[in-house]
């Protein structure tokens, strides 16, 4: 196994552990029926929110 692959595997393992803890927090109280039917504004999804100093090319 190369060093690059090893570090990638370690990174994945680290994320997995973090997510398991986060999952316990999120699902701790079961389903949340205050859940909205949607989140966000479709008319604004192409707008940028980059801070000054960042180029306005989010995600490209």
């Amino acid at each position, binding site marked *: 196994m190369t060093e690059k692959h090893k570090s990638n595997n370690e990174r994945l393992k680290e994320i997995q552990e973090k*997510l398991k803890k986060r999952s316990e927090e999120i699902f701790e109280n079961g389903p949340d029926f205050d859940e*909205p039917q949607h989140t966000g504004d479709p008319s604004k999804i192409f707008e940028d*929110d980059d801070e000054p100093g960042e180029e306005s*090319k989010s995600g490209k």
Partner: protein
Amino acid sequence: MQATHLDAERRYEQLRLEARKLAEASLPPKYKGVISLKGIDSHSLARAKAWKVSDKRQVDWEWTAGYNVYSLRYPKRFELAIWKSDILCGLSIGRPSYNGSRLRIDFVERAPDNCPLRGQVMQINLLAAEAYALRIGADELRIMHPSNQELVNYYSRYGYKYVKGTMGFDDAHEQKPHYLYKRL
């Protein structure tokens, strides 16, 4: 389409796949083998067309046309289709900032009628979005344009903080967007 764009699409598709696997493996045991997290494809878009006729739907958004433009423009995007067996329960899209330090969720929608995961779609979406953010090395997740105070309260319960934009919830001409964020 430029070669660099295609290359980004290919590389980030792999990261999306890995992040969905990580999120799926982190779901509570009761969801294992019941819920699947997938990318958005023609199958899910076809199912979402049925949402348009629901009188419970609160938003007028055409997923097929919207997703096609969004996916073409943002090869590094986050995308998610949440399925329970053969039922499409939710769709979501988002994208990283230019420098990749944060991920923003632009739009999430739960199936408006008879969703078997009602009360859990946004929770699952949060976990999957945070998984993708971590996978691409971002350290912040933003939920853009929360439309009302109830929604702010909802995400606050999951550790998200509200940042007010230059205008109120309903202002169509806000110069600086409002959002919720969480450091990961």
